[in-house]
């Protein structure tokens, strides 16, 4: 479990000091995957580097399993670092070592004897599905394979926490999947708590339980992904849900236009037709679609309703647990 409290960090620069973190408070629940998203320069990497103990914050605390890690030095700092597995941003493998040699590095740092090291390395390469590439050098691996080796290396010393900064930024969508699968396995099979910095919403969609949005060094939104998508005011929701053309239906002659968000319904397709027939309204799908957040199917549709009992129909949909946001006029459409 990672608890970050009131973390601040300022960098000196020519144009005066730059505040990268302006009091970040964040709680990552044990055994979950938390995504950190936000615009460029928001402080995501700085936060990750502080938690990785590569950067010293100016103030605040970082606790992993209850121990404050800020301000440690020497051998205690090195011991604390071993508790935290890190997949650094960019290419971070030793090019003069094989995949297996790279995974062995943290074990050497920890002083593990060679025979044990070999079996542990084999275990980890198996976990990331690269047993057959053990003897390959990084230049003989694809980008996705290199990142998986980096993940295996980060997990080698049995850390309770795994940090990854943009682990998929250089990868195509297909390869991204293989890296995300590995991060997900780390959580599921090893019970590791994962903090992943990303600008790719697909990462959040696929593996994150929680998400924190960073802006100008502050957390502006934080919570469970599935809770946030049901929150009409959440900006995470806006980017995670299937896109709806904001002008769709606004100019049409429907009595009511609304966005309906359905989380975890087995038969999302059945709900809307049922509402139409129950309340004798005409219901037109104007946009939106289905997606998946982890294992959970999630849908957002824009619907246009025509009929006297259009309001009742929307209320009924809302009562079944869906989130209904009416769009009375104008393209903003957030008013309830």
């Amino acid at each position, binding site marked *: 479990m990672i608890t970050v409290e009131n973390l601040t960090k300022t960098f000196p620069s020519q144009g005066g000091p730059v505040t990268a973190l302006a009091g970040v408070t964040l709680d990552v629940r044990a055994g979950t995957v938390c995504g950190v998203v936000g615009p460029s320069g928001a402080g995501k990497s700085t936060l990750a580097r502080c938690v990785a103990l590569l950067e010293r914050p100016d103030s605040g605390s970082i606790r992993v399993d209850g121990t404050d890690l800020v301000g440690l030095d020497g051998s205690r700092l*090195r011991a604390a670092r071993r508790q935290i597995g*890190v997949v650094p941003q960019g*290419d*971070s493998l030793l*090019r*003069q070592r094989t995949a297996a040699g790279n995974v062995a590095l943290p074990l050497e740092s*920890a002083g593990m004897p060679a025979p044990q090291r070999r079996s542990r390395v084999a275990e980890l390469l198996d976990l990331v599905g690269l047993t057959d590439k053990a003897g390959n050098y990084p*230049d003989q691996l694809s980008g996705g394979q290199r990142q998986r080796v980096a993940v295996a290396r980060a997990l080698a*010393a049995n850390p309770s926490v795994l940090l990854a900064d943009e682990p998929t930024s250089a990868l195509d969508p297909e390869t991204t999947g293989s890296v995300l699968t590995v991060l997900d396995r780390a959580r599921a099979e090893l019970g590791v708590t994962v903090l992943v910095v990303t600008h790719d919403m697909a990462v959040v969609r696929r593996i994150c339980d929680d998400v924190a949005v960073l802006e100008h060094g502050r957390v502006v939104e934080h919570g469970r992904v599935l809770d946030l998508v049901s929150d009409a005011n959440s900006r995470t929701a806006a980017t995670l849900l299937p896109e709806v053309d904001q002008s769709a239906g606004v100019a049409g002659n429907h009595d009511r236009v609304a966005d309906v968000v359905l989380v975890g319904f087995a038969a999302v397709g059945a709900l809307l037709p049922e509402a139409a027939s129950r309340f004798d309204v005409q219901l037109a799908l104007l946009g939106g679609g289905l997606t998946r957040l982890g294992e959970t199917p999630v849908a957002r549709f824009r619907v246009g309703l025509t009929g006297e009992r259009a309001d009742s129909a929307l209320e009924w949909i809302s009562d079944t647990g869906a989130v209904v946001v009416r769009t009375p006029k104008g393209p903003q459409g957030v008013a309830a």
Partner: protein
Amino acid sequence: MRAATPWSEVFELLSVGTGETLYMVGVSTLIATLLGIPLGVLLHLSAPSGLRPNVVLHKILGTVVDLGRAMPFLVLLVALTSVTRLLVRTSIGPTAAIVPLAVGAVPFVGRLVQNVLREVHVSVVEAAVTTGASTLRIVRSVLLRESAPALINAIGVTTIALLGYSAMAGVIGGGGLGDVAVRIGYQRFDDRVLWSTVVLLAVLTTVIQLLFDLAARLVDRRRHAST
């Protein structure tokens, strides 16, 4: 103009000269490497962006290295005479020449090593830092190992530079091929000796370069490097 030295004598002169040259260059390269690599490592580690930033140490080492490199070799050769005599109990001959050669090459190697280490990508080093590795282990297993091929190339460059300087050392009684070329080839107008040494030095340079290229390739694991 006198008659050219007979080939048998030229042979004798050149083999003795080559032996002395290789001795001077070999030993001074070895010393310069043994001292220059730690110097380069310290320069790299103490830099503001290094693993152990230390402004004072970095400034001192940097200044010493710059002064050492700015010093013309001939001046160093003369200036170090008393030190040389103290260390090897003579101020002429190949052994005496090793002292100024090594002293001149240490800062040179230090800078080369520093530049080579800088090429190791930051995220590679940081990855090692996050494993809890000590600085010593990072230097050994990451910095030096990752740049081993480039380090070998740098030592090769140094060896060839020292080959050139060793010829200069010959001028003040250092011996070696430079001594043969100047004392016999040039001062006695013996073109046969002069050009033989020139060809021999060229061959030596080429062979040394080839050997270091081979060694660099042997330690480089990136056989199928894409870049």
